[in-house]
């Protein structure tokens, strides 16, 4: 008897708990429904990856101060959808395949393909009618309009633009305190680099005189290795050689580079774990003073590493080094300079029921108020006007909750990563607080115009071209990355370089180059 009574009581308890959650679930839903009814519409859903600096303090971009203000100013309700970090690509592909699209997708994409697949719509008319601010910018900057438009003149994205001075955001940094200690000059040529790295290895006894790796999956080569390859005037993928499209790894310079890198690897001048590094191990090696030189970003990288290093060792210092060259006096060609259109933009999907309203709302960021909101946040709260110059308050520069500058910015507005609108130079000027950062941006920007001669412009491919191209390049990229590692660690003798080139030709690199060349020709004819 006692047992059955117990069981009943337990059952009753369980029912109550379940019922409770069900009820609370209901009331939660009710509130949401009510708020939606405020203007009688569903919120506009926006798919965008969540920047890591945002995710430190917030769960969704909806909580960013600037987004809340934007909603108030335009009367539009939004709902951000974020893919899981590290799975952005997968979730994007799955989303496309499922045809269940949000209203807006913020992507770096193959826009023509998305359009031809029927996922997104053409925006020209909508921009003409509902985006006066963006329209004005495009009229005033024909170069930007050329980049944004597809070959047939279509526009598929509300862009993220960089019209100011600052277009190079990262490069090589070196431990200046070690250079001073060893009485060395900053290296310029590859030979000087070798001397410096060897000194780091022998005199400082570090594991990774040159650290490189693959934070977030850029390629197994990592941006730093690419910098040394680029000293030879070629790069790791397609680029322009005297105006013609070429593929770096099959150029003869690639072999010279491999020989040098293999030698460096054998001597222990580069990080032996280069192929397995991730962000965590990469950071750890810098902060443990195991790395002498590495590629990082001026804002997010130096801003994070330098204070942490100096906390342990007040003498620690890192400074920017000019992109390496082969001969003294050469000018570096590849500087990572961004185009005016960064290639990122907001697309309106076919599922969007209110494209006019959406375009109008997004255009707000190109207007005076929206521009300030995006780059500086709310006046009086995150910035104040000092002699007509928007100056960040202590909420941003010396955050009371101990957030770093980049984290505090990410909490209140959208300046450090691509989003609809235009980057403001005055943001960058204040973002780079440390002298090392200010010097770096000047140094890295010095030759940035050279890059326009060698990098592929924002071209657009037809669906057929795009399918064919990605099929060819998928195979080649995997093969190239694997062989690169093998050549460097010595699993494959460099004498087999010709076979490597031959295999890439077998994958039909010539066709891929041809596709790109056609697209570049069409771009130039725009």
């Amino acid at each position, binding site marked *: 008897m006692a047992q059955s009574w117990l069981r009943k009581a337990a059952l009753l308890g369980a029912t109550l708990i379940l019922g409770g959650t069900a009820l609370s679930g209901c009331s939660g839903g009710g509130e949401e429904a009510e708020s939606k009814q405020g203007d009688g519409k569903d919120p506009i859903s926006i798919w965008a990856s969540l920047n890591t600096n945002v995710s430190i303090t917030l769960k969704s971009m909806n909580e960013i101060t600037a987004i809340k203000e934007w909603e108030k100013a335009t009367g539009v309700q939004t709902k951000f959808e974020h893919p899981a970090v590290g799975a952005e*690509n*997968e979730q994007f*592909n*799955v989303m*496309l*395949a499922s*045809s269940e699209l949000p209203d807006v997708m913020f992507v770096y994409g193959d826009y023509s393909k998305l359009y*031809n*697949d*029927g*996922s997104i719509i053409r925006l020209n008319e909508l921009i003409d009618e509902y985006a006066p601010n963006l329209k004005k910018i495009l009229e005033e900057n024909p170069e930007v309009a050329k980049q944004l438009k597809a070959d047939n003149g279509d526009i598929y994205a509300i862009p993220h633009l960089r019209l100011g001075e600052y277009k190079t955001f990262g490069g090589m940094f070196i431990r200046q305190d070690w250079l001073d200690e060893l009485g060395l000059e900053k290296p310029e040529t590859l030979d000087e680099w070798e001397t410096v790295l060897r000194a780091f290895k022998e005199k400082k006894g570090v594991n990774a005189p040159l650290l490189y790796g693959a934070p977030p999956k850029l390629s*197994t080569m990592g941006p730093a290795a690419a910098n040394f390859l680029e000293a030879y005037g070629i790069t790791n993928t397609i680029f322009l050689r005297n105006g013609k499209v070429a593929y770096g790894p099959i150029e003869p310079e690639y072999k010279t580079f491999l020989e040098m890198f293999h030698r460096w690897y054998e001597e222990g001048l580069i990080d*032996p*774990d280069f*192929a*397995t590094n991730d962000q965590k*191990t990469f950071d750890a090696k810098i902060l443990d003073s195991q790395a002498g030189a590495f590629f990082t970003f001026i804002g997010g990288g130096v801003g994070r590493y330098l204070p942490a290093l100096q906390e342990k060792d007040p003498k620690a210092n890192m400074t920017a080094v000019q992109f390496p060259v082969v001969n003294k006096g050469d000018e570096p060609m590849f500087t990572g300079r961004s185009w005016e259109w960064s290639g990122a933009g907001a697309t309106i999907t076919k599922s969007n029921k209110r494209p006019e309203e959406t375009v109008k709302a997004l255009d707000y960021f190109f207007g005076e108020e929206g521009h300030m909101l995006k780059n500086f946040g709310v006046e009086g709260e995150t910035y104040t006007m000092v002699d007509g110059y928007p100056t960040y308050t202590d909420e941003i520069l010396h955050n009371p909750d101990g957030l770093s500058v980049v984290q505090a910015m990410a909490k209140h507005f959208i300046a450090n990563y691509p989003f609809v609108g235009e980057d403001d130079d005055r943001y960058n000027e204040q973002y780079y607080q440390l002298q090392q950062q200010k010097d770096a941006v000047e140094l890295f920007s010095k030759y940035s115009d050279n890059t326009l001669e060698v990098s592929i412009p924002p071209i657009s491919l037809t*669906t057929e071209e795009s399918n064919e191209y*990605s*099929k060819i390049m*998928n*195979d080649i990229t*995997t*093969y190239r*990355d*694997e062989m690169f*590692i093998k050549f460097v660690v010595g699993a494959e003798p460099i004498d087999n370089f010709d076979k490597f080139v031959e*295999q890439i030709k*077998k*994958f039909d690199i010539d066709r891929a180059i041809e596709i790109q060349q056609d697209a570049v020709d069409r771009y130039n004819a725009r």
Partner: protein
Amino acid sequence: MSGGARKLRAAREGGQQAPYAPRDLHGRGTDKKEGWFARLWLNYKKNKAIYWMALPVVLYFLVFKYMPMYGAIIAFKDYTVGKGIWGSEWVGLQHFRDFFESYYFWRILKNTLLLSFYQLLFGFPAPILLALLLNELRHELFKRTVQTVSYIPHFISIVVICGMVVDFSARGGLFNTIITFFGGQDSALLSDPSNFRTIYTASSIWQELGFSTIIYLAALSGINPELYDASRVDGASRLRQVWHITLPGIMPMIVILLILRIGGLMEIGFEKIILLYNPNVYDTADVISTFVYRKGISEGSEFSYTTAVGLFQSVVNFILLLGANRLSKALSDNKLF
């Protein structure tokens, strides 16, 4: 699995005894002229509860296993999202041809088969051995402790297990500490293609050993103790007992599990490889499913091509399963279907 064993035993013994019971259950023995549906209805009325219990399972297979098969037709089409599954153009066997001619075909096929084969070769006998060893133990507490300790890893998420393995194999990790203690070289073990298969197989055995043993222990407890008593009277040593009584006693179980394992030979655990591998070791680690994952959704979006590759894998699996079943039927009269 024990259901399978029971069914098997029933099938073997069913020939001689209890001819009435199964008839009743299957609704046979009633008037033969009645239609199939009428018989089904009759049977349903008799065994309502069983039908309702089976319903969720049937639905599960319909919804999650049979319906997605419809999507497999994109393997024969040039699928684009805009045109949809039906609207895309037919291309016949083009994607299969592309795959067979691909540079990576032989490599991923070889890796898939080899990894599976090692799993089978080393992973399959391991739990049997442990079960036999445990069976010979007479100290109950010790036996229980060993059992518990050995099956705990099964309940740890594969993500955690792989995270541990990756950390242990890194430069300066646990494995390297041991290796250097014995005078070896400190190196990143998971960056060396020649280590991958060993690490993969060994960690799988470690994780699943204890749990797989449970099935065999259950089968072992079903062996009639009188057989052992009789053999002891005849003077059989313990090894002899294992060979002549224990092993034959669990043989049906072994065969069924083997058939199932062979059927899944190509279906190598894809999550685990994804979590363990890196571009350094693609040479030995890249298998069909990881290749499909990379080309299909993570790096590329070649939906049709990768569907074709996945379909190829399923077909080979199916053939292997049928083959193993046939073979076992021919050799030992034990079979799955």
